[in-house]
Structures are given as structure tokens and as C-alpha cells.
């Protein structure tokens, strides 16, 4: 098979996959091992499962569908501030839930800007609580991600193909059908599956904006089982349901992806000859403006509030910020060590079924992973001593599916296009990576590393279970400030968090694209 032409060692890839699966399944196993069998899933658990799947499916569908016009518009337009806008669009995704929710509410909430504007023109207000609120917030979180993933895919199309299309005088519609549609068919199922899984584990967003018990998710049921009932059996069962749902969705979505790869060509900046003016231009401008407004207005409120709170922040926030940056950087290193071999293995396979392994890290409840590893580590070492490494590792696991979605398509193309040449040169193993793969994947690696760093900065999951007072991360410190009524200082900390997350993302992303044309 042509894909096999290049000799990427599958051994490291398989080891990475086994390691990822083992890390997660060991945690489930440990929880089950400590559990006393008895309770199973009750009717409340089943309705939680139903609601979880419904809201996740709606959120995934809307996020991906809306991302198509936005990504298309961004892919074919050049304007001042485009780079900054694309970076800022990544922001909602990496914010701690509570910060993002307060940002969304500042715009869409009961006392928000939208309702104020509606009242001004005499229209009735809107209420954001309910299923639509959950979906709106999830689109806010995930539209940027879907857009970035699609944009990234768009940029893998070689300029020659667009030039050819232009020479043939194809209309935008024909270009869409011949070039862009196959691309979308390749990238959309995976993107939707990814967002489905992210929303599957949602808990604080769904509860807060869902309006109460109607919006119970599996993750909340897991939380309850651990905290008040300490019913490890039920917690582990629910975790397995969540893993199973996510894993099978992922496998299914990846299975139906046609193994399309685009033709070869030299790397050149993406130039489009179609859609130069008229209606297309206006439509693109409209999509970009609406998306930017939807995503940036809530962020603006986070920034405005943060600036007011900055002077009230205690010095310990900076210390926490340092800890968070350290954790984020370790996560990036761990992630790359796992993701690159894994991507290399997946790329040489005709179908992407094994990519589902990567999704496990995201589908597993952080509380479950934390508890499982706590049970395993506690007898041999102090969990406090390992708080930061474990946090870094779990954060890397969480970022793994994103990294794979980013790396695999490009890696697959590279292997197909250059495989034969590499084989003729006898490149294998490390030299193959060093001379062929890494240079060509640099933009994708930078993006993946940036996303991991930023995600890790904003994460609150595992640290809470392992933390001791000296190793508070920035999100944890922010919660402590809120817990002590210091909402303004907490808003300041949230702004620092936003700035650091975006900064880390920007540095890696920019670094990856430095002197690279993509």
C-alpha cells in the first residue's frame, strides 16, 4: 500500500497509544478496585446520560456548521489584524469555565449588554438559561476551535490547486465543490467528534446555564458520586459510560472519514483567485464581523473587569502564575513526546480508528483520573510531591486529541507526497523525522503546542485533588479569591490568566510559523 512507502516506525507510536490507554484505564481500574460493589446506575443517571448526549450533539453540530463560513472567510481574506484576530479567537476555549460564563453573561445575561440594547429599542429581553443557553455557551467555547481546525486544513491545500482552478475559470461554487468540499468531508467528522467529546464532559457550564436539575450531565453525576456519596462503584461506572460514549463516537466518526488526500505541490502562501469581489466579499466580511463580535464582546467584558481588579490583586497571584506557566511548559513537552509518534503511526494507516485512543484523555473525567492516580500513588509516594507532574501529565492527555487532529492530516499528506522520495534516500527513523517530517509540520506542531500550553494554563481539574497550599495554580488561586468574596481581585487574576494563556499560545503558534509559509 502506498502509505506504507515511508518507513515511519510504528513501534513508538503503538507504545505511545498503549501508554495513553494505560494511564486512563489504570485510573478507572484503581477506582473500581477500591469500590465496594453494590449500587448500579439509577434512573436519574440515565436521564443525565440522555441530556448529556443531546446537548453535546447539538453543540457539536452547531459549532462545526457555523465554523465553515467563518473559516472559509478567514482562509480567503487578508486584512490588517487578521493574525491577531485568529489568535484572539482561540481565547474562549482556554478560559476557566467560570470566567468565560461570566463573560458570556455580561453580553447575553439578564443584566447584559444585549438585553440593555433590546430594552433601549423597546423589545422584550431574552433569557439565556436552558438548553439554548448551554448550547450557546458551548458554541462560544468551541466555534473558535472548529474554525482554527478548519482554517488549518484549508491551509494544507496547495496554491497550485487554486491556481489551476482559477485558470479553468471555476466559479466560487465550483471551487467549493471540487476543492473545499472534499476537504470538509475529510476534516468535519473528526472536528465534530472532538467537540462532541468536549461537551460530553461539560459540567459547570451545563449546570449554570442549563438552569438547574434539568441540565444534569454525567460529569455532575460522577462529581456527586465521588463527593457526597463516595460511591466509587457508581463513579467508575459513570466514568466508563462517558469513556464508552466518547470512544465509540470517535471511532465511528473517524471510521467514516474517507481517506482523501490532496495532490502534491510546493508550499506557497495561500493565494485565492476566486471570490475576489462582490457578494462573496461582503458575505465574508459579514461572517468575520459577526463571529468576531460574538466571541470578542464577552472577552472584552473579561478584560474590562480585569483591569479594574488588577490593583487589588495580592502578590501570591504572581507566584501562582509562575506555577501555572511551569506546569503548562511541562505539559507541552509531555504532549509532544506522546503526540508525534502517535500521529506518525496513525498517518501511515489507511483509516484513523486508532485516533480514538487520543480522545480517551478528554473523555475521562478529570476527577476520576485524579482519584484513580491518587489511589495508585498514595501507598508509594506523597501525592502532594507529585501534584505538579500529575497535573502536567493529565493536561497533556487532555490536549492529545486536539494535537492529533492538528497533526495527522498534514502528516498524512507529507507521507503520501514525499514518501517515495524519502524511501529513495533511505530515510528512516530519527533522520526521517528530523529532515522530512518535523520541518514540514512546524506550523502544526507550533499550533498544537500553543493549544496545549494554553489549555493547561486554564485547567482546574486535577490540581484541586492533589494540591497543597504552596503549589496553587492560577485558576485555583482565582477560585480562592472568589471564595473570599474578592471578586474584583479574582477578575484581575482572570485577566492575567487570559493574557498568559494567549501569550503562551501566541509564542508557540508564531514560533511554529516563523519563516514558514502557512
Amino acid at each position: 500500500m502506498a502509505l506504507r512507502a515511508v518507513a515511519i516506525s510504528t513501534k513508538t507510536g503503538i507504545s505511545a497509544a498503549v501508554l495513553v490507554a494505560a494511564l486512563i484505564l489504570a485510573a478507572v481500574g484503581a477506582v473500581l478496585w477500591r469500590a465496594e460493589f453494590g449500587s448500579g446506575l439509577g434512573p436519574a443517571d440515565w436521564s443525565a446520560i440522555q441530556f448529556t448526549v443531546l446537548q453535546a450533539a447539538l453543540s457539536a453540530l452547531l459549532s462545526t456548521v457555523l465554523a465553515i463560513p467563518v473559516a472559509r472567510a478567514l482562509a480567503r481574506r487578508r486584512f490588517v489584524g487578521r493574525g491577531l484576530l485568529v489568535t484572539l479567537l482561540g481565547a474562549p476555549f482556554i478560559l476557566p469555565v467560570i470566567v468565560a460564563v461570566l463573560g458570556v453573561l455580561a453580553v447575553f445575561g439578564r443584566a447584559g449588554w444585549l438585553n440593555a440594547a433590546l430594552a433601549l429599542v423597546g423589545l422584550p429581553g431574552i433569557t439565556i438559561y436552558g438548553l439554548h443557553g448551554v448550547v450557546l455557551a458551548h458554541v462560544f467555547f468551541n466555534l473558535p476551535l472548529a474554525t482554527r481546525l478548519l482554517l488549518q486544513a484549508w491551509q494544507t491545500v496547495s496554491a497550485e490547486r487554486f491556481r489551476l482552478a482559477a485558470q479553468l475559470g471555476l466559479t466560487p461554487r465550483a471551487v467549493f465543490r471540487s476543492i473545499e468540499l472534499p476537504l470538509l468531508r475529510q476534516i468535519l467528522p473528526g472536528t465534530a467528534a472532538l467537540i462532541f467529546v468536549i461537551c460530553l464532559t461539560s459540567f459547570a457550564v451545563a449546570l449554570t446555564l442549563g438552569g438547574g436539575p434539568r441540565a444534569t450531565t454525567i460529569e455532575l453525576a460522577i462529581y456527586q458520586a465521588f463527593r457526597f456519596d463516595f460511591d466509587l462503584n457508581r463513579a467508575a461506572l459513570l466514568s466508563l459510560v462517558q469513556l464508552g460514549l466518547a470512544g465509540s463516537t470517535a471511532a465511528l466518526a473517524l471510521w467514516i472519514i474517507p481517506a482523501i488526500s490532496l495532490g502534491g505541490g510546493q508550499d506557497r502562501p495561500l493565494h485565492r483567485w476566486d471570490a475576489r469581489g462582490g457578494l462573496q466579499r461582503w458575505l465574508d466580511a459579514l461572517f468575520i464581523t459577526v463571529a468576531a463580535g460574538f466571541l470578542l464582546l464577552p472577552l472584552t467584558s473579561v478584560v474590562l473587569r480585569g483591569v479594574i481588579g488588577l490593583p487589588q490583586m495580592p502578590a501570591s497571584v504572581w507566584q501562582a502564575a509562575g506555577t501555572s506557566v511551569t506546569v503548562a511548559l511541562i505539559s507541552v513537552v509531555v504532549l509532544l513526546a506522546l503526540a508525534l509518534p502517535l500521529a506518525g503511526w496513525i498517518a501511515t494507516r489507511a483509516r484513523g480508528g486508532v485516533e480514538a485512543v487520543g480522545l480517551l484523555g478528554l473523555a475521562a473525567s478529570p476527577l476520576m483520573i485524579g482519584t484513580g492516580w491518587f489511589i495508585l500513588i498514595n501507598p508509594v509516594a506523597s501525592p502532594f510531591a507529585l501534584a505538579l507532574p500529575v497535573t502536567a501529565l493529565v493536561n497533556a492527555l487532555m490536549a492529545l486529541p486536539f494535537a492529533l487532529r492538528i497533526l495527522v492530516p498534514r502528516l498524512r499528506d507529507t507521507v503520501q507526497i514525499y514518501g517515495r522520495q524519502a524511501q529513495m534516500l533511505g530515510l528512516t527513523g530519527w533522520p526521517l523525522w528530523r529532515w522530512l517530517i518535523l520541518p514540514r509540520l512546524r506550523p502544526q506542531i507550533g499550533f498544537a503546542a500553543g493549544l496545549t500550553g494554553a489549555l493547561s494554563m486554564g485547567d482546574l481539574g486535577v490540581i484541586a485533588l492533589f494540591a497543597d497550599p504552596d503549589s496553587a495554580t492560577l485558576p485555583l488561586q482565582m477560585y480562592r479569591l472568589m471564595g473570599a468574596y474578592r471578586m474584583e481581585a479574582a477578575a484581575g487574576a482572570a485577566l492575567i490568566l487570559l493574557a498568559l494563556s494567549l501569550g503562551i499560545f501566541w509564542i508557540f503558534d508564531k514560533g511554529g510559523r516563523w519563516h514558514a509559509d502557512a
Partner: protein
Amino acid sequence: MKYLTLAAITLVATQAWAETPELVVYTYDSFVAEWGPGPVIEAAFEAECACDLKFVGMGDGAALLARLKLEGARSDADLVLGLDTSLIAAAKETGLFATATVDADYDLPVTWEDDSFAPYDWGYFAFVHSADLTPPANFRALADSDLKIVIQDPRSSTPGLGLLMWVKDAYGDEAPAIWEGLADNVVTVTKGWSEAYGLFLEGEADMVLSYTTSPAYHLIAEEDATKAAAAFDEGHYMQIEVVGKLAGSDQPELADQFMQFMVSDAAQSVLPTTNWMYPAVTPQGGLPEGFEKLIEPGKALLIPSDDVPALREEALAEWLSALSQ
């Protein structure tokens, strides 16, 4: 090599340190924060105990208990500070706690009788609102009003659980009807206290479930008199926070000394303006200025801790069915 040297130094340093006994106290997060009571209490106790007091903060009361159950008898903790009366029965059931006697003249609205846990502070749950709002006088009036409230989920937070107990204690079998009446007042339910209070401050609701002492923070720390707590005539449910010692402690005498210290003036005088709760024993200097402006409920409600587990399950089912309509 460098690391080996570093490790050796750390080891020696740890051993030298080990000569002063270490007392480990598990507590909730906001207690250990630099603006919380932790640092002051640590300094004051270390001055008299010739020991090293180490606070370890993790989540809230419920998270503390879950952590203890995970660690079991192997726990490094000598004491746990921050469980409340809703959690005492579950805590005792673990068999991890030792009996302890603390000698104190408590200023609690109820008589305190417990052979394991000593209360160190307490508060009343209450709905906090903007001072210019005329609050309803009880749950029935609240249910009949158009006021919007934010509450916490009893499945993920201790105040949320407190509210369940409050309605149950005040209304007994009528509790389901009260919840059905309240359903259209509840804007939303949050994971924890911070989220709910944040939403309230953002103007998402007229009232939020918090404590009668919450306005004291705004009044004293921020000189802001725009927040008030609503006095309900059916009484207010209490949260009493307690400290207890673990049976597996390797410093039992020190642990006893710490429990006694927690009700001493040195600790009690710190709590009102760091933990924003009432002290369990009124300090010699009285309560800080500003506390006299807080509402004082006519009736203190509290379900005996042994009855909580059974009632919790019943109340949770009622709450779920009323609010998921």
C-alpha cells in the same frame, strides 16, 4: 550530580526539621489562603506549641471528607478542620476520628454536644440581596414573588445541601410544595458558592443563597453598605464548622492542644474578619465593628447530624423532582 546534591541537602534539611514535631491539618481552600485565617492562626499556634503547624487546603468540606476516605487510616493528617454538621455523621461512619474533649463556653444558638468534634465558627444561611430591595419575609412569600434567585446544587456544594436541610427543617412534609413554588424563582443552579455569588454580583438574580455574615465582608472590607441579608421568619438554618482529630494521628497531644487553641481568644478573634463567620466563642473584645448591623434570625434551625444522611436522600429526591419539571 547537581540534583543528587540538592536531594541530599533537602533530605538533611528535612531530617533536621523533623526534630520539631509536625502537625498536619487538612482544611478547605479559602482557610489557607493568605487573606484567610490560616496564616494568622499558624503563627499564633506555632508561638506556643514548639511545633510546625502545616495547613493543607483542598476544595471544601465535602472534598475534605472524600479525601480522607481515599486516604483511609494511612492519612498524614492529624486533624481535619472545616467539616460541618451535615457531614459529621458521614465522617464518624468512617471510623477515622478519635474522641476529643474541648473545654469551652460556646456562644452558639444551640447547645453543643459531640464527643469527637469541636465547633470553631458558625453562620446562618441567608439570601443576600441588594440593600434597596424589600426582601420577602419567608420562603412562601419568596415563592409568591417575582424575585429571581440563584442557588447552589446540593449534589456538588455544601451551601446547596444546607438549603435543602433548611427547607426540610422549616417545612417538613410541606417541603416539596415549597420547592414547587420556588421553581419559577430559581434563575439557575450553580456548582458552588463562588459561581452563584459571582452571578448575583453580575446582576443575574435579585438574591443569592449565602450567609447572614456576607454583608459584613462588603461593609467592613469594602466599606460598601449596598448588600443585605433577608431575615426569614421561619428561622435560618445554621452551618457550624468543626475541627476533629484523627485516630491515626502520631501527635495526639498536640492535636488536642490545637483543638483547644481553636476555641481560644487568639484564634476566635481572627475568624470573623478572615473567615467571615461568627466565632464559636465570642472574643474578649467582642465582635468587630460592622457585625452589629447584620440581621439576627429569631430562630436557629439545625437538624441533628445523625439524622442528616437519611433526610438528605429524601430531600434531594424532592428537590430534583420539583425543579426538573
